[in-house]
């Protein structure tokens, strides 16, 4: 059997394979380029960007949890201008989609960064309304359907016709409402899930391990939550979903795609194995071949409901 078709079209964003890397877990690709050929990755959601450079939160910023971790980085990044000048040209050397994760503290800021970024040489914007690690903005926008609609609509208008992904938070009452609000406001695609909020306490010092107390939980432990949310969302929206949350092998990818994800992101697993993306791509290809599936898109949403 010839190689299966791996190309996916996420409502205008075409990836040569469905494996992307989650924002905040892959920097701007430079560190991982020493370990894995970035040409083998469908798309890179770059580290969350803000208008001005951000120093991020105090240390400790990480705490390990059973089959997962908490992070409290707080959107440390060099700012949008630096990204456009230094990181886009670097990433453009590779055959991988550049997906700019953009953040703001109010709607005006979201629109300003969206406008600047949409004019830059990126393939898509990922609107982050779900970061749990910043005081203002972030998660506050992602938990109320009316706010999700408002900010998405405004950013949609500020971004010309650039492909727009809205990244959803799992820290909500009803993910379907939130997803529908983003879709109605003009999102081309959804990515989900961002981290779940969590806490670890050191019983000896009786203080939280993270300097900021609460952080975002990721890793294999969150996977069932993420799969459920992708499944629920895929049942109500028409736009494609990029699924993520604890993916570390090809079986996880198949599970997310069966649940309804048109593509997936690998996040925390990159920290464990810097070459995980390539391994998952190889294993996924073998899986499709041995199951006589000649097009990856044929499994999307094919869970028996």
């Amino acid at each position, binding site marked *: 059997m010839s190689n299966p078709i791996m190309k996916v079209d996420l409502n205008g964003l075409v990836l040569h394979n469905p494996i992307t890397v989650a924002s905040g877990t892959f920097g701007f690709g430079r*560190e991982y380029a*020493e370990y894995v050929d970035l040409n083998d990755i469908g798309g890179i959601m770059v580290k969350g960007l803000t208008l001005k450079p951000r120093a991020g939160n105090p240390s400790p910023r*990480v705490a390990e949890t059973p089959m997962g971790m908490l992070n409290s980085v707080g959107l440390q990044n060099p700012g949008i201008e630096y990204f456009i000048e230094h990181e886009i040209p670097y990433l453009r050397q590779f055959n991988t989609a550049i997906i700019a994760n953009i953040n703001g503290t109010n709607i005006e800021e979201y629109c300003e960064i969206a406008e600047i970024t949409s004019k830059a040489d990126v393939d898509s914007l990922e609107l982050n309304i779900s970061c749990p690690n910043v005081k203002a903005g972030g998660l506050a926008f992602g938990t109320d359907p009316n706010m999700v609609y408002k900010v998405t609509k405004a950013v949609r208008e500020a971004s010309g016709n650039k492909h727009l992904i809205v990244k959803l938070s799992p820290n909500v009452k009803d993910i379907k409402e939130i997803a529908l609000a983003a879709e109605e406001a003009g999102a081309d695609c959804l990515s989900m899930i961002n981290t779940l909020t969590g806490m670890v306490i050191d019983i000896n010092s009786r203080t939280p391990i993270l300097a900021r107390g609460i952080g975002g939980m990721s890793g294999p432990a969150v996977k069932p939550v993420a799969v459920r949310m992708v499944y629920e969302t895929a049942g109500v929206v028409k736009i494609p979903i990029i699924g993520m949350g604890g993916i570390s092998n090809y079986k996880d990818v198949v599970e997310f795609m069966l649940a309804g994800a048109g593509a997936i992101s690998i996040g925390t697993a990159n920290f464990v194995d810097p*070459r995980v993306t390539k391994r998952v791509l190889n294993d996924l290809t073998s899986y499709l071949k041995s199951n006589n599936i000649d097009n990856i898109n044929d499994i999307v949403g094919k869970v028996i409901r």
Partner: protein
Amino acid sequence: MKKTYDLKIMDREVLSQEVFKILLEKPADMPEIIPGQFFGLKADDNGYPLLRRPISVSRVDANSFELTIKLVGQGTELIYNKKIGETINVLGPVGNGFYLEEAKKNSIIVGGGIGISPVKELARVLKNKFNDDFPVLLGFRDEPFDLEDFSLYSSKIEIATESGITGTKGYVTTLLEEHLKENEIDTVYVCGPHVMLKAVKLLCDRYNVTTQLLMEERMACGIGACLVCTCAIKEGTEIKNKRVCKDGPVFYGSEVVFDV
């Protein structure tokens, strides 16, 4: 392209109730290991615990290298329980290590607790480079460990213990100040707990002596992508959060901001 390695555990030695070392085979295609560099160890192949354990190199031989590990939890216990002959997956060597291009003979090595391990390899390398022993000041809470091995790389070891069980009762800074008072010192290389790094830096500042500090922080990726292991660093008038794993783990004392 860089990769991770599955390395055979060639030997294990227990140094104390909570410290042990393992000797790993060094593959031919592994890059040179600089003192102060570290490895990310996968505690178990079944995936739990999730993250790699960052462990400094305590000695490099022709075909092997040694890691000294403190038992602090489940991950290090799993590593301890591995049998000789089994393999362990490692990422590395990563990090920058000590800056030794301009190393001068009139320098001092300081280590504290488990932090004596990376400076043991430093003592070995400096001894080879200068064909002379460097003064080594080691601080322990109680019973010292690994001294037999350490003494192969310096005949000028001085000990301070908090309990007073052996050596000078107190801290390494007491020993260090004697050297700073009496001699013209170029650089003090140091690894140890946070409070010790800070105390050594402040002391050396008073004597206008350069310090290189090997910093420790909780890590995830180990290669500079995830930004969880930052350290506040002065850059001109600005304070930046630098990555301990990638920009460090060794920083000059003059640039580290201790009270953020």
